[in-house]
């Protein structure tokens, strides 16, 4: 299987604290992966490194068929290359309508001049409407996104992520604070997305991870502790000791 993203030997310290320690990780172009781990295991820092928010002290992050390094690229260049990220707390633009939020995320030329002279075409409009249908927000398009409920904001953010048409989705705790029905819907969206692209989900909730039915990577103290199916890692004695046993 080809590799879309390869992280190898990455380490990063903050004021002497090793948040990520010689971490290696690989994911293919159409694969779902769940990352679990106790608090402080380095899950968010790991995402920060891939998206360019944090520069690692050592190691390599290689992207795509042409094997370019992401380490030299700025956040927006990495996003344009096809890495989309969903934050733990839903971050949508609350002052703007659901439609505008989705339109903003739609894959288009991002330079100031082309944005300034952008004219909304009927195709873009249809695209936004299709996305809204996919995330179940068709009726909410003209509402300000600040008025949405927590779960709806999470979906909107996932929708914005899909609108970017990324090749890799990094999703941080998508199911936090959701009702059981909302969780089910979210699982559906993510599983559907993983058919055509790579999806990395960071999650605390084992039940949710079980539903995703995918390969699991367990992080502990900044490096990979175990990898494999959920049943496989939950039987691993190290994992039980540091995480599940408690």
């Amino acid at each position, binding site marked *: 299987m080809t590799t879309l993203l390869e992280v190898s030997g990455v380490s990063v310290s903050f004021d002497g604290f090793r948040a990520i320690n010689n971490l290696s990780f690989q994911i293919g172009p159409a694969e779902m992966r769940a990352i679990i781990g106790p608090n402080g295991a380095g899950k968010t820092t790991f995402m920060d490194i891939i998206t360019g928010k944090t520069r690692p002290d050592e190691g390599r992050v290689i992207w795509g068929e042409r094997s370019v390094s992401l380490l030299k690229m700025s*956040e927006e260049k990495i*996003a344009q290359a096809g890495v989309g990220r969903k934050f733990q707390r839903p971050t949508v633009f609350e*002052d*703007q309508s659901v439609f505008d939020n989705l339109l903003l995320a739609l894959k288009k030329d991002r330079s*100031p001049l082309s*944005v*300034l002279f952008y004219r909304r075409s009927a195709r873009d409009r249809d695209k936004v409407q299709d996305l809204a249908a996919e995330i179940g927000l068709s009726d909410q398009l003209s509402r300000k996104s600040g008025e949405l*409920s927590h779960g709806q904001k999470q979906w909107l953010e996932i929708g914005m992520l899909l609108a970017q048409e990324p090749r890799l989705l990094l999703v941080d705790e998508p199911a936090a604070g959701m009702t059981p029905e909302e969780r089910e819907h979210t699982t559906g969206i993510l599983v559907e997305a993983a058919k055509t692209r790579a999806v990395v989900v960071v999650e605390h909730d084992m039940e949710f991870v079980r539903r995703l039915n995918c390969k699991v990577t367990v992080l502990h103290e900044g490096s990979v502790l175990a990898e494999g199916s959920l049943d496989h890692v939950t039987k691993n004695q190290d994992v039980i000791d540091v995480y599940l046993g408690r």
Partner: protein
Amino acid sequence: MERSFIFRNPSVLIFLGCLALFTLGVTMMSEAAGSGLISTSFVKTLGKTLCLCLVAIAMDLVWGYCGILSLGHFAFFGLGGYMIGMWLMYARTRDIVVASLANAAIPPTDQEISDAIGNQIFGVVGSAEFPLVWAFSSSLTMQLALVILVPGLLALVFGWLAFRSRVTGVYLSILTQAMTLALALYLFQNDSGLRGNNGLSGLQNIPGADAVPQSVMSLWFLWASALALGLGYLLAAWVVSGKFGSVIRGIRDDEARVRFLGYPVESFKLFIFVLTAIIAGIAGALYYPQAGIINPAEVAPIASIYLAVWVAIGGRGRLYGAVIGAAFVSLVSSWFTGGQVPGFSLGAYTVNWVDWWQVILGLSFVMVTLFAPKGIGGLVDLMTGARAPDRHGADLGPDKGSLQEQEATQ
């Protein structure tokens, strides 16, 4: 199927209509029209107010929409004024010098004329030489180009350095304030080449238009200012109405999120910073011929802070709010500080409005910020019934976005 720009932004049409009516009304009541209900000096005040409204729109774009609290936009305003002032002063002095030397027995050489002009302009700072910055002052076209180029380039260099280093928030405000202060201090020096603290004066006399009385001249500038304000409003409304506006409001609300969507945030900030600096420069170039004089005190940091106060009181994040704030506060301000308002006695102490106006302005700024963050423009929302999302009840979850008590029971 897409509705037209005007249709989607009805406030633009309303604003342009009001501006046209205002200009027409002032013209009819001016001394030049014969009725004289409005004195020429007040026509000039109104014309200057329109220029202040234009720079307030620039401030609203950069602060209210893009979230960059620039405390340096009056520097760009002043620079625009200096650029046009150089030509006005040069050309006017040249006319006078040529007229006085015309009576001499021997016709003057070009060098003599140039020396005499230099002596007239720079005698006050003990010099007669033209400094390098006056190289283009004989050409109106060049100085008009400089009105745009000088503020634009300063904003480009400053913005590039500041945004590239990811300086944001209060630190950026302090940086812009430092830039303004540095510029003012530089201009205060006699050898800065712009006549030190004397500044440029006599700008109300337009070269070659000696026959035109000031009452008519004031109207010309009123019309020019109104036209510039109308066009500036239209441009600003167009910029913020589409996807570009969506992006810069996103930058204001959550810069990191916009970056992760793949937008080059720094380029957008730089674009808006330079655009607003140019608008400010144009506004300044129209303002100072009406004021008649420009000196470094105009560029002092406090001026840029006033600009932020106007926009805050008028209501930031909406263009007409900035216009209302600038017009209202600057007119009321000149009314109070003009000494026309009689003070009243509190027995032992007499309240003198010239002194107390600053206190009132400061207090109202604090009040607006605390209790009416939408400013005067928020009244429009009250009338049209538009409301921001108002979510009651305690949070059910730890985060700001989590489900609220009332929603959960619905």
